[in-house]
């Protein structure tokens, strides 16, 4: 019971992190029409954050099993 509450709280934290990174003025910092090593910066940023959120969520729910 305690553990699942903790997991829920962590997930809510991840949600807030996601909001800040993807749906706040923070987004504009990386929203540039330039490239980085040939990749558009926005493309890298958005997929990078996406992957980060997936990994964090996976750690939050699967990690707490042990």
């Amino acid at each position, binding site marked *: *019971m305690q553990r*699942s509450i903790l*997991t*829920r709280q962590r*997930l*809510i934290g*991840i*949600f807030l992190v*996601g*909001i800040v990174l*993807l*749906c706040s003025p923070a*987004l*504009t910092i990386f*929203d*540039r*029409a330039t*490239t980085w*090593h*040939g*990749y*558009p*910066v*926005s*493309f890298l940023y*958005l*997929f990078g954050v*996406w*992957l980060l*959120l*997936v*990994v964090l*969520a*996976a750690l*939050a*729910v*699967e990690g707490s099993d042990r």
Partner: protein
Amino acid sequence: MLGPKVIVVCALLYLGLLFAIAYWADRRADRKRSVISSPTVYALSLAVYCTAWTYYGSVGRAAASGIGFLPIYLGPTLIAALWGTLLLKMVRVSKAQRITSIADFIASRYGKSQVLGGIVTVIAVLGVVPYIALQLKAISQSVTIMQSYPLVNDTGVVAAIPILQDTALYVALALAAFTILFGTRHLDASERHEGMVAAIAFESIVKLVAFLSVGVFATFVLHDGFVDVFDKAAAAGVMKTMTVASAGGYGNWFSLTLLAALAVMMLPRQFQVAVVENSDESHLRRAVWMFPLYLLLINIFVIPIALAGQLTFAGTAVDADTFVLTLPIAHGQALLSLLVFIGGLSAATGMVIVETIALSTMVCNDLVMPGLLGRWKRIPPPSDFSQLLLRIRRGAIVVILLLGYLYFRFAGEAYALVSIGLISFAAVAQFAPAMIIGLYWRGGTHAGALAGLLCGFGIWLYTLLLPSFAKSGWLPAGFLEHGPFGIALLRPQELFGLSGLNEITHCLFWSMTFNIGAYLYFSMRRQPNVNEATQATLFVDVLKHERPFGVALWRGKAEVHELSRLAERFLGVERARYAFARFADQREVESVDQLPADAETVHFAETLLAGAIGSASSRVMVASVTAEEALGLDEVLDILDEASQIRAYSRELEQKSQELEAATGELKAANEQLKEIDRVKDDFMSSVTHELRTPLASIRAFSEILQDDPRIELEQRRHFLEIIVSETKRLSRLVNQVLDLAKIESDNADWHTEDVDLGELIREGAESTAQLFAERGARVICEVPAEPCVVTADHDRLMQVLVNLLSNAVKFAPQGGGVVRIILQAHGRNFRVSVIDNGPGIAIPDQRHIFERFRQGSGGTEKPVGTGLGLPISRRIIGHLGGRIWVESRPGKGATFIFELPVNDGA
């Protein structure tokens, strides 16, 4: 090799395979060996979110506006992090109340209202049928493209084909047949459509693999990786500016993210797979990350494919929406084309099947049933509803798919179809306030939900659907430009003068504002009534209870057989009787007849029925066979409050009682131990007093004799005095040993541990007992190795043990011929000291007790000298030093006392 026939055969084979998977999974489910009770299958089934719109449309959007398509998937990624609470609540409520659709959910939340269920159903059908049309279009378009292989068909025009030759019609009918077969096997939706879920999960894999294949082809085969694609696109001038700002701006970005986040929860098909088909709450945990991961994977190649398509088809009229398929065709990749085609088929069929099942349930339970129930109030209903219900659902499936086909047929290439994905999202997003606020706020009322839904839906209709019709040329475009009756303030896409937003953002803003505003305003106009308050508590507080629960708030008169007959009519005799029998089992009564006609039974029947006909209709039906007395609001609130408190307490209580039980067990054990200690102490006291009384008796007797008779001859007097002295010594020795033992036992003894050489100790011991041996005419033989054998021990205590063993040995050795051997040797990680005598030995049963207090060996005829405490003390000393002591003996062959102590190797 890819002729038109091959394409059709492949498509049919694929549908056949789906059919086989579904059939197999259903068979397994019947045998209670579910294939879908896996968190991974659950997460995959959620990917029904990705339809043909994703599969073909994302690339089209990317070609047009760069990264503007991403919010459709970032929104679900974000909201997925909240599933641990939000979706969990929905799942748990639905399980407890046997909710089978989103319409049922909203209707149930606001007092099981038939009106709300109906409204939600109408909105869902109107919003989603065009979306189904989009899938039919995608399928028929992909068939058309494939049939012209190896040429790239860039027309995709279908409207000219007569209806009876239209692939899409047959696709629609085939899907209807498939959906009917696996969507309406049973009535009770709580039994879920396992076959369908298995097929959907399989389709999710197929479409992902297909899309990744074409992505890899476009990125790594046609080009040298991502950077190469970007470079070439930039060189060719087809590279879009990859920024949010250029893809519609931040406002649109945020609103699309929000819209998609709401849609992934509110779309009827998502509710179906995520809530209704959920077989285990714990599956949510994996979905929280696996579903976003799926979305990430299926989107990673969208931009490269779009760019590669634009590079390949530069200067042609090929629609970017078809790049996924036309790209491999243009490069002559027959197998890859076929795989992509099948993948697209997966994406489209998956959506259509689940969406139609969900909608047909809603249409049946929330539109048709209330109407029929109204009719049956006047004329008697048919005796067996269950077949009728199934026919209604099957009919609904066919009608919905035909509606989708007709929409596709008439909208054709019109704007209304192209942008329908987001328009559908905006429609179902109208459910969000009533759903989500209703899960967290008790104050929401039926009136509030109704007003919110109607306002939101009205705004959607006015600002999004009508303009799309106007743009398709079905309505005069003038009212878009100037507003109805020339009122500029009411221009649908610049409502109240709000301009500068795109149409979706504009609609979302106004519809949500009015929806939420009306919901809150009408909810707060009055207190929730009895039904609303009851349901509000069941929904809002659902997570406070570990297991789903339903409070049975009901008072009145009911007949159990009436209820069971009602259930039989809707569910069929067999299934209803089975359910009632199980309920009787649960309530621990012998048969269904003995079920009490109380609130719990009525509640059970109502929930059972809700699975088949929806909560609102179920409530009406149950009310028709029972005589319910109205409960007052205060009464209900009291009961609910009490119930939730009782449940909270009872959980706490259960925990407490478990703790108590554990404590009681411990206490019992402790008590036993104390009793045992007490008994031992008692025995000990009794033994000690006995041992004290005996020498005291001699001392007193001889003292009195000497006192009484002063004329006793000198020799005898001296003898008697000697006895008195020796008995006094015995007494003090006993007292000392008792104190010693007590000290060791209570851990109060002072231990001076040091390195002790056992060989040295044995020599000392033999010396100090030499006198004793000499008196008894016994010999002592020491067999000690030359090198030092060092242990960590208290020298004096260890000496006490050795002397005790030696004196025991000599005591029992035969008078005059006693031989005692002391052997010291290494034994593994221990040193072992053996003291061997050639006395009478110790009887086997006595060997066990010899280390207990006051248990002297009884081998000799002569009373042995000793207190009976030597061995118990020795055992405690050796134990304290980390070793052990025991005896080996065969009666008549002497006894060997052995102790071992761990080697001190300086470590």
